[in-house]
Each structure stands twice: as C-alpha cells, then as structure tokens.
C-alpha cells in the first residue's frame, strides 16, 4: 500500500524537502536542515505541515458526557472556544493516545489526535461510546498547519490579518480567510507561542503559500518538530506515554480528574494512586560523551538497572545532548548521576528538573 500525501506534498518537494515515511504518510523531515529549522522556531517563526494528524468530531446531546467518559480530563472545566490537553486511557490506566480537545459548544467538539494512532483511536472511541453522541473521523476533510515561534504572531498578522493576541493561550477562534472557514488555535508542540490552523483540505495550499512566502517564516519538518518538543518535554506517544504507561508515571497528573466522575481507566488509576507509582518520568543531560537515545538502559551508582530512555538526542538549544527516561521511583533524584549503556559503553548522565526548555 502506498504512502498517503498531504495536499502540500508538491509544495514540500518544490522547496527541496527530504520526504520520509511517517505513520503511513510521506512527510517532510527537513528542508534546509533540522538544526537551522529548530533555531528558526526558537528565534523567529517556523511553519509545519501537520496535516497527517487526525481530526475526530464528537457531536450530540451527550457529547460532553461522552468526552468526559472517554478521556481522563474534564471538558466541563473549560468554556466554549477553549482547548484542553487530554488522554484516552485503557482499562489499566495506560495511555491509548494523547490529544487536544477543542470545545466549540457543549454539544460539539473537535479532537486532534496523533497520526500514528488515528485508526486505533477512532475504533476505540466507537467501541466505547455509549452516549447519545456521534463520533466522526473527519481527518480527510482537514489540513493542518502549525505556525510556531516568537515571530509567529507577527507573521500571522501579516499573512492573514489575524491578531493572535485576540485569543488566549489554549483558546481558539473560527474565522474566515480567503472565503474559507478556518479554526485557529493558540496551541502547539514546540514550547513557543504560535498557533495551529485547521483548514479545509482543498484550501491548504492557499494558507501554506500565504505564510511561507513571508521572509520571516521558515518551512520546518518533522525532524525539527521532534527536537523542539523534546526540549519542551512534551510527550510523544510510543515514547514517554504508551498503552503500558499511565499518566501518573508520565508526569501528567494535571490532566487526570479523578474527582470529576467516571471515565475509562479511572478505577485503575485510583488503585495506582493508592499503592503509589512504581516508576517515574525524569529528565537528563549527558555529562559524558555521546548521544543517549530512546531504548538505552539506565543504571544507578550501584550498577542496578533502573529503567530506560524514552527520548534523547542532541538539540540546538543545549551544549550537551538531553533526554527523558522512565525509571524506578526514587532511583534517580534531581542532581544525581546515573549511567546509560550505549553501544557497550557507559555514558554518565546528570538527572535534571523538567522541562529542559521553557519558552512560553
């Protein structure tokens, strides 16, 4: 089966992007280079095609109840026009996927889920939906762009005449540009200010061109997307979070509303909270030589295996490589040294407080 292409495929190729397979799509991993794109987002404005992400609509009289049952957070805590970071949990409290819920109204929600989990998420939602709410996979209808960086607001204003300051962080607004209805959300995955645009698929190139033609906007690929989110310590499903990792271990307690009513996984989390989590997400910086990547085993000073790296690489904002890891609780206090085994060699790490980088 061939890879899917977003409506911007030709635009990426024309810009000289290196295209790679990702979650069944042919996506740009870089244009000029991962490092320069990363730096552009930290200092200016970067534009990402994230049309591969999944969009699921939940509508109906019991949409709010459905979402509150299917996710661990509580959408009654946000007003219309606000977005909320959340997660679908399985019966064991493990994370099926993380997502952003946009609340249009009590009966109307747009969910943005990971490209790699879209089919799984959709089937899981259908299976577990016992409410008067319709769940629709609308991913084919939407293209999605992310404009990120301290220069994003200015670029957005220049290209579309929209003032990002008119919406609060994690709020969104539906507006019309080029005769198209677009949802602009002040969200992102880079640790910088900026927005994500949900655009009708057929109009994607109009918006891409309007933004990328600005001198201040740099096209950025999935490579930079990963180094940016790692610095900001945002989890990536399959790494810091997964079906076998629960939100309490992953430092996502803040999205879990145990007091707000029943949801899938609540029982399991109550038990875990009662007995205490056995492992915990930590951050590290490499003190020795080399890059320590996901999967690397970690050892304490006594030489005992304490866990493994969930993500790690060399990123532009820091002199030494950084990463995150899941380790036995109490085995790696902030300020202590632990050891990673990399290709048969021991590399010393310093455990540090998260996040690595805080932009916004």
């Amino acid at each position, binding site marked *: 089966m061939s890879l899917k292409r977003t409506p911007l495929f030709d635009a990426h190729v024309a810009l000289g992007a290196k295209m790679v397979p990702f979650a069944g799509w042919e996506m740009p991993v870089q244009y000029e280079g*991962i490092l320069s794109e990363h730096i552009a987002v930290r200092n200016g404005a970067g534009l990402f095609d994230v049309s591969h992400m999944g969009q699921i609509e939940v509508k109906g009289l019991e949409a709010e109840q459905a979402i509150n049952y299917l996710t661990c957070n509580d959408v009654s805590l946000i007003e219309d026009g606000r977005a909320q970071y959340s997660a679908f949990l399985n019966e064991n409290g493990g994370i099926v996927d993380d997502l952003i819920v946009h609340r249009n109204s009590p009966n109307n929600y747009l969910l943005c889920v990971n490209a790699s989990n879209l089919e799984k998420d959709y089937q899981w939602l259908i299976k577990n939906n016992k409410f008067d709410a319709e769940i629709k996979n609308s991913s084919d209808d939407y293209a999605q762009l992310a404009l990120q960086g301290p220069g994003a607001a200015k670029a957005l204003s220049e290209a579309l005449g929209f003032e990002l300051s008119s919406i609060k962080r994690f709020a969104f607004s539906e507006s019309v540009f080029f005769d198209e209805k677009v949802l602009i959300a002040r969200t992102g995955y880079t640790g910088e200010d900026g927005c994500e645009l949900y655009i009708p698929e057929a109009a994607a190139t109009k918006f891409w061109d309007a933004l990328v033609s600005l001198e201040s906007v740099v096209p950025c690929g999935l490579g930079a997307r990963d180094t940016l989110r790692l610095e900001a310590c945002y989890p990536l499903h399959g790494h810091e979070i997964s079906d076998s990792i629960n939100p309490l271990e992953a430092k996502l307690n803040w999205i879990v509303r145990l007091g707000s009513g029943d949801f899938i996984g609540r029982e399991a989390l109550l038990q875990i909270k009662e007995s205490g989590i056995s492992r915990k997400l930590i951050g590290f910086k490499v003190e020795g030589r080399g*890059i320590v990547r996901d999967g690397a085993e970690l050892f304490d000073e006594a030489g005992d295996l304490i866990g493994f790296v969930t993500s790690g690489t060399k990123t532009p904002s820091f002199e030494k490589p950084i990463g995150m890891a899941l380790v036995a609780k109490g085995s790696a206090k902030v300020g202590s040294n632990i050891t990673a085994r990399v290709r048969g060699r021991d590399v010393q790490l310093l455990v540090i407080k998260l996040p690595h980088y805080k932009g916004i």
Partner: protein
Amino acid sequence: MEIPEGLKFTKEHEWVRIEGDTAVVGISHFAQDELGELVYFEPPEVGNVIEKGASLCVVESTKAASDVYAPIGGAIVEVNPDLGESPSLVNESPYNTGWMVKLSSVNKEELGELLSVEEYRDFTTKG
C-alpha cells in the same frame, strides 16, 4: 558535488584514498546528504587493528546513529581531531576536511574489490 579522482568506494558509501603508506577514509557526499547534519562523531581508538567491513567509527545526526564501515582492513593511526568539535565538517567537506580516519598497513588487495569513482557515481544515481 564533484567526486575527486583517485577515490575508491564501498556500496555503504565510504571512500578511501591512498596517500603513500596510509589510507584515508571518509563518507561520501551522498551519504552525508542522506544522514543530514551530523551532531556527533564517535572516534575509534588509535592503535586498534580493524578488519574490512567492521564498524570503524560512528556518526550521529539528531535522528539516528550510523556506523561507518572500514572499506579495507588496517591499523588505525590517526583520527581527524576537528570532528569532535565540528562533526558538521563531514557535511561541508566530506572528501576533504571532513576526512575521518587514517589507516596504515592496509591490505591493498582489498582495494580491488571496491568501486571506482565512475562505478560509485552510477551506483548512486541509479538509486
């Protein structure tokens, strides 16, 4: 990028150039382009003896680590001292200042098994 004359190549995109009694080893322009910007170079131990095809050293981009394989066997006599600070030299100048390792006492017969510049050019354009 023009490939300098006199180099021999492997199908894994390493090149070797004989300079008197030493063999200089690096990776091709094609390879550095595939890998992306290098952020780390893990050097081998000077003095070690290496067999043809064994992992000589490792280069890393933000996305992955890649082994560089010895195009011919020999003893490691020198490692490019600039690659520790500036691994991106390999991207900028893969055939020149981005050289990686020098070998001595090489098995010159093994050179015959490698691709010529023209053969390598064909190999990488047919992709």
